[in-house]
C-alpha cells in the first residue's frame, strides 16, 4: 500500500532531554495506526512534531497527499500543516468553548476557503456562495458525526463524549487525508468508547482517511488498529500487528517493569 506519511530518524530534544530519538514511522493509505507507550514515552511530542507545534531537531517527516507531490513538512507552522491535509485533535479537549457547535466546525473550513476582509465587508456573490458552502459542509459533518441536534448549542455545554466527537468533526472540516487523534478515548465510558470505535472505522471506510492515534485504552487499540507502534523513553521499541506487539517481551518489560526485581 502507498504510504501517506513517512517519518525517518526523528530527533527532538528539550534541553538535555532526548524526547525523541531515531523514531521511524510509516502510515499507509487507509491504515489505522496506534502509538502506545508508558507516560512520558514521547508520544505527544511525536504528535506535536508532526502537527508543527515543535520543530524537530533532526530527521525527516514526509507526507504524500493524494493530490500534489511529496513534501517534507519539518518545521512548517501548524496552520500550514493543517492546510496540507494533516488534522489533529488534542489530548485535553481544545474546542472553542463560547462558539456554537456549528461555528466550531465552520472554523475548521477556514483553510479551505478564501474570503478576506474586503470580501467580508462587500459581501459579494462569491463570498455569499462560499459562506453557504461552509455552512452546508459543516452541517453535513455534524450529521455524519451524529451531533446535529446540538447545532446552535455552545460547545462548552456539550456532554464530554460529544465534545470529543465534535473535536474530530472539526478536524474533519479541514479536509485532511491523515487524521491525528491524541487520546481520543480518554475519559470516555465504555459505551462512548464503543461509539468512538465505530466512528473511527467509518471515517476510514467512508472518507478513506488514514488515522494515527495515541491511546491508552488497550482494548480499543487492540481491536481497532491495523498496526501498533510502541514507544518508550523517546525510542520506538516495537512495531507490528496487535497480536505481535502483545507478545513482544520488550513491550511487556516497558509496561510492567523488569523481571528480575519481581
Amino acid at each position: 500500500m502507498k504510504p501517506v506519511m513517512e517519518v525517518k530518524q526523528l530527533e527532538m530534544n528539550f534541553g538535555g532531554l532526548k524526547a525523541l530519538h531515531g523514531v521511524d514511522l510509516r502510515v499507509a493509505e487507509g491504515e489505522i495506526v496506534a502509538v502506545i507507550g508508558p507516560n512520558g514515552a514521547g508520544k505527544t511530542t511525536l504528535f506535536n512534531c508532526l502537527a508543527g507545534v515543535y520543530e524537530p531537531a533532526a530527521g525527516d517527516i514526509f507526507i504524500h497527499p493524494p493530490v500534489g507531490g511529496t513534501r517534507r513538512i519539518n518545521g512548517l507552522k501548524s496552520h500550514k500543516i493543517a492546510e496540507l491535509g494533516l488534522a489533529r485533535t488534542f489530548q485535553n479537549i481544545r474546542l472553542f468553548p463560547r462558539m456554537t457547535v456549528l461555528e466550531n466546525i465552520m472554523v475548521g473550513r477556514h483553510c479551505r476557503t478564501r474570503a478576506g476582509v474586503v470580501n467580508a465587508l462587500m459581501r459579494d456573490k462569491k463570498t455569499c456562495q462560499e459562506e453557504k458552502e461552509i455552512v452546508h459542509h459543516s452541517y453535513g459533518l455534524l450529521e455524519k458525526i451524529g451531533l446535529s441536534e446540538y447545532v446552535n448549542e455552545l460547545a462548552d455545554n456539550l456532554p464530554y463524549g460529544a465534545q470529543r466527537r465534535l473535536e474530530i468533526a472539526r478536524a474533519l472540516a479541514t479536509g485532511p487525508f491523515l487524521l491525528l487523534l491524541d487520546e481520543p478515548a480518554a475519559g470516555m465510558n465504555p459505551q462512548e468508547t464503543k461509539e468512538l470505535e465505530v466512528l473511527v472505522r467509518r471515517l476510514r471506510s467512508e472518507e478513506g482517511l488514514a488515522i494515527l492515534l495515541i491511546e491508552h485504552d488497550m482494548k480499543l487499540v487492540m481491536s481497532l488498529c491495523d498496526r501498533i507502534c510502541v514507544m518508550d523513553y523517546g525510542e520506538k521499541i516495537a512495531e507490528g500487528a496487535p497480536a505481535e506487539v502483545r507478545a513482544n517481551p520488550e513491550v511487556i518489560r516497558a509496561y510492567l517493569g523488569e523481571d528480575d526485581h519481581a
Partner: protein
Amino acid sequence: MHKLKQSLFISLWFVFLTFPLLVIRVDTLNKVVEWRWRNMWYVAAGAFVLSLAWRHFLEKSGRVMPQGFTVSEGKEEFLRWVRAHTQIRKGGMVLAAAFLLLSPFFLSTYHTNVMTTALIYIVLGLGLNIIVGLTGLLNLGYVAFYAVGAYCYALLNHHFGVGFWTALPLGVLAGSIAGVLLALPVVRLRGDYLAIVTLGFGEITRLILENWNEFSFGPSGISHISPPGFFGINLGVRANTSYIYFLMLGFCFFTIFMVRRLQDSRVGRAWIAIREDETASQAMGIDAARAKITAFAIGAGWAGAMGVVFAAKTTFINPASFNFIESAMILSIVVLGGIGSIGGIILAALLLILLPEYLRVFSDYRMLIFGSAMVVMMIFRPQGILPYVRRSYEFHLQNDPTGQVK
C-alpha cells in the same frame, strides 16, 4: 448568624483601618490629640450594613462566584422577552432613530456636542471591540491610534491646508499603519505581556507628542484646525455642530454595519477562534499572526478615523486629550457593554459618556463611582450589560440545510 458574624468582623476591620485617619486628629496649634469617637461608630455601622447587603446580593445572584459566571434570571428573562417581541423592539428602534435624527433641532449646541462625543466613543468602542472583544488581545494603548488620526489631520491641515475629507482616509491609513507597526512585534505575546506592551505604546505615543516640539508643537497643541467642509459653504457654529453630529451618526451606523459583517465572516470567525483557543485555531489552519495583524490594522483604522473627526470637531488638540484614562475609558465601554456585543457597547458608551456629563454635581467622585461600578459589574454580571448572543442557524429539512439567521 454566620453572615452577621462575618459582617461584624469586617466592620471591626474597617474601624481598625480607618482609625488613624478618621478618629485621631492631632491639633498642632493647641498641641492636643483630638479623639473623634463618633466617627468610629459611623464607620462601624456603615461597614456592617454595606457588608450585610453585599452578602445578601451575592447570595441572591446565585452564588456561582468561583466559576465566574453569574446570570441573574430576572434581567435575562427581560432581555429574552424584548428579543422575542419584534413589535416592541421595532417600536423602540423607531423611537430611538427619531430621537437621534431630530435631536440637533431641539437640543442646544452644547447637548449636540455631548451627543457627538458619545457617538465618537461608540465607534471607538466598536473599533476596540475588534481587537479586544473578538480577537481577545488586551490593548491598553488604543488611544494612541486615536491620537495618530487626530495629529494626522491637524498637522496636514496646519502645514498644507489639507481638508477634512481628504484627511479622513489618510487618518484611517495612518491609524492602520500604526496598528500594524504595533502588531508586528506583539503577535507572539499573550495576556498580561501584551497588555503591558500596548500600554507602553500608548504612553510612548503621548510622550512623543508632548516633547517633540518641532513636530507636534508640544503640550500647547495645535489650534485653528478647519472643521469639516460642506461643499465649500461656510456654516455657522450651530449648523456646523449639527453637521458634525449627523456626520458622526452616519459614521456610527456605517461602523455598526461593517462590524456586523465582519463578525459573521470567515475572518471574524478566525478572530473569535483565536480568542477562544489560539493553539487549537492554528491547528485548524488559521494563520494566527496574520489574523491578529489584520485585527489590529482594522481596529486601529477606526480609531484613526475618529481621531480625524475629533480634531475637526474640537478644532484644537493637544496631547492631554490622549492620555491613558481615555484608553481605559474605551476599554471599560467594551467590557461593561459586553465583550463582542454591539448593542452592549452602544449602551455602555452612552452611559459612560452621557452620565458624567449630566451628573456634573458628582464630578469629584466620578472615578470612585466608576471604579465601584466596575467591581460590582465584574462580580454580578461579568459578561456585560448586554451579553453577546451567538448567531444561530436554522435548518429546515434534514437534507436541505439553509443557513438562515433565526
